[in-house]
């Protein structure tokens, strides 16, 4: 069974220069999509990843990460749009760091690309009708 999960990996400084993502692909057949990352040599780092693969591979991959000292958290926050409240003004467009909002050509409605969202919550208070909600 295929699974796809958004997780946050916290690296200790000693692991920052390891080719961890490469091993997830090569040895565990996992696909990854980096949603957000902060990695600076010689200091701690984190990556928000969407990890996709067979359940068995996913579990093995997570065990591998834990074993080498990566702290894993589920990205449990989820930003959703309350469609009743959104007025499609577009105030969110330049606030979102990952470009998760786009204007649909023609209708000029604001599209929310949930797959690009990293749940950073920047849009929550930037939205005048407060249509963006954080769910746990």
């Amino acid at each position, binding site marked *: 069974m295929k699974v796809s999960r958004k997780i946050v990996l916290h690296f200790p400084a000693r692991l920052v220069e390891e080719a961890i993502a490469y091993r997830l692909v090569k040895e565990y057949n996992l696909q990854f999509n980096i949603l957000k990352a902060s990695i600076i040599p010689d200091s701690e780092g984190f990556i928000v990843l969407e990890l996709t693969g067979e359940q068995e591979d996913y579990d093995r991959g997570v065990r591998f990460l834990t074993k080498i000292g990566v702290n894993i958290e589920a990205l449990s926050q989820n930003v959703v749009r309350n469609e009743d*409240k959104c*007025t*499609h*003004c*577009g105030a969110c467009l*330049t*606030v979102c760091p990952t470009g998760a909002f786009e204007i649909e050509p023609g209708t*000029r409605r604001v599209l929310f690309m949930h797959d690009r969202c990293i749940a950073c919550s920047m849009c929550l*208070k930037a939205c005048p*009708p407060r249509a963006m909600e954080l769910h746990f």
Partner: protein
Amino acid sequence: MPKTIEEINAKIKAGKAVVVNAEEVIGIVREKGIARSAVDIDVVTTGTFAPMCSSGIYFNIGHSKPRIKLEAARTYLNDVPAYSGFAAIDIMLGATALPESDPRNKIHPGDFNYGGGHVIEELVSGKDVCLSAATYGTDCYPRKKLETWINIRDLNDAVLYNFRNAYQNYNVAVNVSDKTIYTYLGILKPRMGNAVYCCAGQLSPLLNDPWYKTIGIGTRVFLGGGSGYIAWPGTQFNPSVPRTEAGIPKRGAATLSLIGDLKNMQPRWLRGVSMQGYGVSLSVGVGIPIPVLNEEILAHTAVTDDDIPATIIDYSRDYPQNLPDVLGEVTYAQLRSGRIRFNNRDIPTASLSSYSRALEIANILKEWMNQGAFLLSQPVTPLPGIESGLAFKPLNYRPVERNNSS
């Protein structure tokens, strides 16, 4: 052949009027030319939906037993202060009012989750609102305190009355400073990291009738989902700003004071909004039909986003200090592309005015007329034009000298 409003109304009643929105008219004029289109089209509908802070409501609650008069009372609606310095039980609430308990910007930027605009939205939604008032008693109005739920269906009169709506063009806000600022045009990133505009451009009512040839006092309009009227020129009415050759104002120019029955309005078109670090407001939906009385009027409705310039203003220094400086000009077509090129940089753009909702309003107005449910009104008197010499003046600041010894 010029048409009259009576002739167009007769066509609307007969279901024969040709009504198009201000976006559709652009293509029709391109294809058929102005002369032909002016014969074919009877009405062009416009729309805009954006925060309009100078909006408010007034209503009459009916008399209690025993009677209370709120004339000098402290009056609150869901803890938001209202104004009741009128005859006994008339109450007015402004869109930007905040509960006294709101922390404002004490921890900057404040959230401003709830205020007058939200109370108006809840009232229009049919929700109960808590009225509380305390005052002094008199022989004829003995009651001193009142706390009760009120509902729009029980109010004697409920009227939306806005001092200033539907600005004819507006600023594009940027921030040239090194830190993020929080404004009524939203969050502005440092070093011109974004640009925010707030205008429906080619759909905007007053940009389709730049010289106020048809839009005047007494014009019937779409207001908040119901119908209303233009009551007066809006406050800060300023027709004498610089204009393009075609007459389009390059800055905020005319404004409208609008009035309508709140009981016929809908929360979809009256929406409380929160501007982080700034305050609260009310997004208002306004749509105005433009009768095509002659070719000149039609030609103006064919205005496109390419033809409408907007002025870029720095909101980190020039706006707050009320300096006249203008950084530059861009068109709404450029703004709507998602990026503007300015000072050799690409600046991402965002809008506070909902174009899709503006279009929806123009289409509702069109539908109302197609069904014969909305007739045009003849303005009672025109709005002041450029010949009026009317100009929006800054405050004549005259410091008050206090005598410290008294």
